[in-house]
């Protein structure tokens, strides 16, 4: 790869003998895919013992930059300097050797291996005879899990863990190593506040130890809480890097998005009517002892709160027909029996699952195919062929409404940034008119503020037009500001209900953790 190494660049990039040595520096780093530039001449320096937030819209190039630093991609040109030495080999093993570790945006569990093996693969302990010291490794894994207050059996198969727990495992993997540079690509996107606290605790420890941390997140409130500096990326370029204390949230957003966002959340209109759309009675999800009963009305956004592992996702999957359950579900008064996703879709239920890579999108298919997959019957003409012109038109329309950044409709979804993939998972349900019931499980995971306000408006408008919305989210402001009503779940059961006037973060947390509503 053509990596420039001329003198002037090197000195700019932090090879200067005088002054404190940056842990990480780039000089004029460039990268493009298919001739489309994704990183444009990025130059920046990051010091040891600091937490640096990278802020930028979906598709700005944050993950691409992280992948270059962690050796998963090679830059087209420019210099990457780690701890004062230019990097010439781009390979994950090499990067690890240099003391770089990463929490990738797309989680990388090895589902068929156990939790302890997932935690420790690549840094095994081996006896003199070459055998694994399994007991020691297991104890180490247990210690790490306990450190993060995770009640997970190290012997459990990884496959059993949900997204949030998987995310925590990635966090442990990256932070428990003696790394000097730790890259965190949206580590908190599926965490609830409790786990996020654990993450922040680990970050502070790392910082105290002198590690340099790069952090991305679309949750604006986290920036202020955790970071020392903020670097703002737009369209593949660094447009500003400054100490956090000198910036306001508003400034950051404006820089990122290139426009002012007045209100993230739409002004709520009162107006959920009393027509029940979804009625759930004594509904028991396989594997959970408790049963649930609730109703979602037309035009209502019903929020589902709870800690990670509360069983929200399982409940939503069961309602959509992905999971076995007993009990009574009615849609518009008619009983829904023997459900499957295909039937649910036909009945007008839309579902955005929590894990986009696993279930939300098909990364090997094109954007066009992904968006129209659930509605192909509607696009099929008399001869049995799919009407491409019609579906292209509709797809273009929803992509515009969700502010999705892409190159071509035929582009495969794997080549989109994480946030834009999430937009695809959402956009596909907006293609044909409006659904009756919209089930959203962490719908804005990884979506930038700009698009988020847009999407909130969309959800809100849908509700206003009479759609019933069931929304599970670990993002508290989102849950509180969008929902008409919030059910808090715990251990698969509904621990309590909060009406709009009574909603606040503590109230939700108290219920989620098993305390009563009013106990202070």
């Amino acid at each position, binding site marked *: 790869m053509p990596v420039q190494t001329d003198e002037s660049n090197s000195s700019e990039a932090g090879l200067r003998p005088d002054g404190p040595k940056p842990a990480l520096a780039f000089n004029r780093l460039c990268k493009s895919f298919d001739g489309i530039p994704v990183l444009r001449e990025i130059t920046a320096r990051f010091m040891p013992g600091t937490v640096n937030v990278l802020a930028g819209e979906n598709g700005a190039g944050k993950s691409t930059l992280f992948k270059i630093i962690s050796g998963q991609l090679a830059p087209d040109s420019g210099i990457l300097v780690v701890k004062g030495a230019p990097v010439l080999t781009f390979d994950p093993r090499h990067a690890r050797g240099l003391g770089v570790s990463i929490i990738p945006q797309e989680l990388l569990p090895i589902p068929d291996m156990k939790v302890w093996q997932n935690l420790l693969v690549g840094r095994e302990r081996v006896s003199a005879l070459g055998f694994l010291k399994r007991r020691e490794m297991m104890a180490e894994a247990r210690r790490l899990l306990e450190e993060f207050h995770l009640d997970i059996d190290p012997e459990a198969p990884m496959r059993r863990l949900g997204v949030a727990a998987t995310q925590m495992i990635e966090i442990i993997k990256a932070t428990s190593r003696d790394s000097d540079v730790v890259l965190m690509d949206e580590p908190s996107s599926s965490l609830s506040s409790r786990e996020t606290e654990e993450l922040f605790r680990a970050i502070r420890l790392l910082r105290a130890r002198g590690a340099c941390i790069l952090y991305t997140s679309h949750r604006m409130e986290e920036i202020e809480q955790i970071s020392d500096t903020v670097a703002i990326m737009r369209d593949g370029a660094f447009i500003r890097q400054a100490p956090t204390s000198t910036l306001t949230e508003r400034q950051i957003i404006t820089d990122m998005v290139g426009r002012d966002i007045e209100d993230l959340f739409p002004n709520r209109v009162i107006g959920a009517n009393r027509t029940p759309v979804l009625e759930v009675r004594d509904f028991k999800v396989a594997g959970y002892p408790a049963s649930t009963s609730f109703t979602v009305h037309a035009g209502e956004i019903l929020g589902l709160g709870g800690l990670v592992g509360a069983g929200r996702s399982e409940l939503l999957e069961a309602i959509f027909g992905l999971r076995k359950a007993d009990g009574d579900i009615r849609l518009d008064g008619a009983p829904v029996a023997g459900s499957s996703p295909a039937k649910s879709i036909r009945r007008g239920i839309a579902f955005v699952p929590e894990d986009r890579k696993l279930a939300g999108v098909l990364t090997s*298919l094109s954007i066009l195919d992904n968006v129209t997959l659930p509605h192909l019957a509607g696009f099929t003409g008399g001869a049995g062929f799919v009407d491409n012109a019609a579906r292209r038109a509709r797809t273009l329309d929803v992509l515009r409404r969700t502010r999705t950044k892409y190159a071509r409709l035929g582009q495969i979804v794997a080549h989109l940034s994480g946030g834009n993939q999430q937009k695809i998972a959402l956009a596909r349900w907006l293609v044909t008119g409006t659904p009756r019931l919209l089930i959203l499980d962490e719908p804005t995971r990884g979506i930038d503020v700009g698009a988020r306000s847009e999407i909130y408006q969309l959800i809100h408008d849908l509700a206003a037009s009479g759609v019933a919305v069931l929304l599970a989210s670990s993002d508290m402001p989102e849950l509180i500001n969008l929902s008409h009503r919030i059910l808090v779940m715990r251990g698969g059961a509904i621990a309590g209900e909060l009406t709009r006037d009574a909603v606040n973060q503590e109230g939700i947390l108290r219920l989620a953790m098993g305390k009563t509503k009013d106990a202070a």
Partner: protein
Amino acid sequence: MQPDRATIPSGDLAAPTPVRTRVDVRALLLRYALVIVLFVFVGVLGVSNASFFTLSNFNVVLLQVSTNALLATGATYVILTGGIDLSVGSVVGMSGVVAAMVAQRDGLPWSTAAVAAGVAAGGAVGLLNGSLVAVARVPAFVATLGTMTIALGIAYVLSDGQPISGLSDAFLAVSDHFYGFPVPVLLMVAAVVVSWLLLSRTRLGLHIYATGGNPQAARVAGVNLRAIRLTVYTISGLLAGLAGVVLASRATAGIATTGTGYELNAIAAAVIGGISLMGGRGSIFGTVFGFMIIGVLDNGLNILNVSPFYQLIIKGAIIIGAVFIDSTLNRKDD
């Protein structure tokens, strides 16, 4: 293996991006390397032996590949869903025997019935495969390995190990000409064209790609995985049955062992053509190049009168080389 994302160029899936929606320049470019390989090979053959570049030899090649073409087309469906069908070789033999048993009687109705019976026998095994995979959840490799053995056993039992011969002329005409075109070649062309339309232009086709690309996500998007899997194995079985009928007609007998080993050739054609065994990736045109390369190789090496021992070595090396060039070129493109 895990689905490979292009963001990490680990190259675990060497197959290129599927281009299914149009026969465009990009599709041709993506299959560039295989086209080059095929043409270079044809060129070398043509120069080294005059008899290669004749219309009648072109006909011969098409006739020779027609069986594998039918099977490879079936394999394409199955592999696109992430499955595999090892039973087709035995099904060729079995449906040939079944058809031959009916075709011993004279007359057009009987020979029509013979064709129908042979194709139906293949379809029945395909349906069984599909049920085992989609409903009973037996891994495709084991299910179709089992039915491969069973179908061969049935063919033996039905024929008592003897060729079933003495077939009516009407049945023998099945492998003959139709308005000047050899019927097996016409069937091959029909199978490819229909499959192209089906895979790239219909809902079923997209659902097949989705099933292979990510079954869970496909299910969430409303794809009926069970129906799709049943369908692809049945199609594969039907095409194998058809191939068996054509072969029985050409060999003037139904012979139980006729198709032994054909399954590997069919899968090879698809995989050489870039259909990923992980599912969800590749196009029927890739398969066409796959079986054409194999066919031209076989024919060409015979025409050059290469010793059969060295034919094996050369054939293996060329196939590996073709796919290597193909995947290397496409990786850059990717």
